């Protein structure tokens, strides 16, 4: 598959937008502006970006506690994400949810979730609705390696397979669930190898290579959209920040391991490739950097000046009426 230069640049820009937004969130967290948990995806941007690049606005994404990147990649504006983490009325969930509960159905972001593995089942359900209603839409479940040992994985993937639903299962295997190594909770280092037992295609991908993710996702999305059923993609990747901001990051992984993965940064990697292939110049990349930085700054300012939710709205929307 040859990926056009413009697409490569778009992937680059999107990853950078996620990275800079996350970095801003880290700083804001340290300043006490974020009130609850804040799980960043720094180091894992390629997965969200490589997959979501193939999605239409009415395709649906179901995400996890580590979902800022998925939200941004699906088209939620950075200002709506930052404002949500700041707990403001202008946040994408009106301040009701925070980091783990980002909702923007208008762009197909159907929620990040504070409960591990919930995304899998809901994505299967959306795909069931698409098949039932004869719509050519696809849904995507993002989930971590930790979710792969949960019953929802088994039940959801099995149903998607038997009914050949238009859904992608994207496992972001970053080797740890909080501090618990995947190797200690699975005798099999790969999640994708489980696919044949369920009768669907599975593939292990370098999740730090956005072009590899992009290619694999292209095929999987096409398979789903054409009615040929679901796919399980396992993206090997790594989070270079602690599990959650404010948490310790020692005792369960080595500094060397972290450094080795930092060296494999998906953004730096793509930048080098773009330059080496002549797809972009240093100054073009600097230009993108500047543009992205401006967007994030504007988003931050927006969030900072946004109003708090009105406590009188506390009980709105529990029911439809």
């Amino acid at each position: 598959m040859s990926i056009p230069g413009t697409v490569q640049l778009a992937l680059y820009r999107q990853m950078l937008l996620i990275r800079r937004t996350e970095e801003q969130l880290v700083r804001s967290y340290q300043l006490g502006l974020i009130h609850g948990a804040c799980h960043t995806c720094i180091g894992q941007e390629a997965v969200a970006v490589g997959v979501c690049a193939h999605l239409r606005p009415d395709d649906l994404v179901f995400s996890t506690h580590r979902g800022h990147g998925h939200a941004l990649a699906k088209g939620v504006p950075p200002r709506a994400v930052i404002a949500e983490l700041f707990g403001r009325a202008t946040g994408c969930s009106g301040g009701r949810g925070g980091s783990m509960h980002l909702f923007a159905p208008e762009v197909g972001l159907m929620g990040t979730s504070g409960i591990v593995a919930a995304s899998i089942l809901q994505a299967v359900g959306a795909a069931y609705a698409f098949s039932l209603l004869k719509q050519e839409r696809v849904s995507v479940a993002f989930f971590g390696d930790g979710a792969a040992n949960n019953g929802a994985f088994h039940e959801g993937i099995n149903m998607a397979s038997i009914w050949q639903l238009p859904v992608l299962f994207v496992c972001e295997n970053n080797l740890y669930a909080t501090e618990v190594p995947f190797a200690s909770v699975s005798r099999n280092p790969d999640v994708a190898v489980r696919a044949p037992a369920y009768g669907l295609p599975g593939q292990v991908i370098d999740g730090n290579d956005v072009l590899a993710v992009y290619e694999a996702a292209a095929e999987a999305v096409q398979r789903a959209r054409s009615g040929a059923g679901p796919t399980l993609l396992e993206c090997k990747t790594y989070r270079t920040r602690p599990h959650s901001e404010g948490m310790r990051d020692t005792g369960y992984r080595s500094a060397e391991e972290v450094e080795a993965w930092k060296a494999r940064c998906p953004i730096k990697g793509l930048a080098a490739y773009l330059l080496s292939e002549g797809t972009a110049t240093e100054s073009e990349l600097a230009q993108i950097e500047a543009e992205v930085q401006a967007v994030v700054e504007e988003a931050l300012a927006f969030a900072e000046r946004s109003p708090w939710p009105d406590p009188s709205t506390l009980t709105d929307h529990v029911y439809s009426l």
Partner: protein
Amino acid sequence: MRELTFMAATREGLAEEMARDPSIFVMGEGIGARGGNFNSTTGLYELYGPWRLRDAPICERGFTGLCTGAAMAGARPVVDFMFIDFELDALGELFNQTSRIQYMSQGRIRMPILLRGCIGISGSAGPHHSGNYYPLFMHVPGFRVVVPTTPADAKGLIKTALRCDDPVLFLEHKGLLNVRGPVPDGEHLVPFGQAAVVREGRDVTVVAIALQVRHALEAATRLEQEGVSVEVIDPRTLAPLDTGTIVASVHKTGRLLIVDEDYAPCGVGAEIAAQIVDRALDDLDAPIRRLNGAFVPTPYSPPLESAAVPNVGRIAAAIRDLVAE
């Protein structure tokens, strides 16, 4: 009016709504060609095929989560749990997700999902097939909880449920499924939140749930001969709960008994008693009493099972005691 059984009435309501709304589908075990363990979908598979009558693997949590996602994406799922006991494996999905997504999304995502299943102690179904569990769903915000007693209400309430954009728990007592009664043809909608005063009386108010409404009516007939006039109320929906009708009744009678085969602690009777003592203390001429199922896993053997559940005799005795207070 023609008569139907309770289950036939529910099925008619479901069938009418499925004809009206192509986004409705049913998911459960054996609800396809088999027509459901309790005939909840008999005949519908032939009309609508596998996508709308979907036999699922035995993974209650999984298909509940699936249906939650399907509702988010524009379908209107009916999850048929067969026995409501099997829904317990899905409570994580239901409490954390299904009930909260409207709120978390600020109402931009709707959750039109119907959860149905059979409840109740009857026929030696034993510890794993006799559950009620409605108080759990009353306790958690986001649900509508519907417990019809008559065939007409069963039809009217399931139709309302299938037009409601909230998660609705629709519960059918196994002891009622074959009860016959008049059922209006076609468009018949019973609104949520309106209790039915199924018998008027002056001396004591009895609020009863599901099958116990029938027992309470029989007890009331017995007591009439003893000169005691009993008012019987069927709440029909437990969330929303029509406390107003109960308050008005207690204002008249001064005495309240709640009869519920489900467990007492933190149950429906507790909630009703708490609301009445808050709103109508001055009307009370006697303590509020609860008559509940025994606080035990439901045993299998007939003499144990019948000792575990209120019946006409025990209701009559509780009313007599209350009148004597």
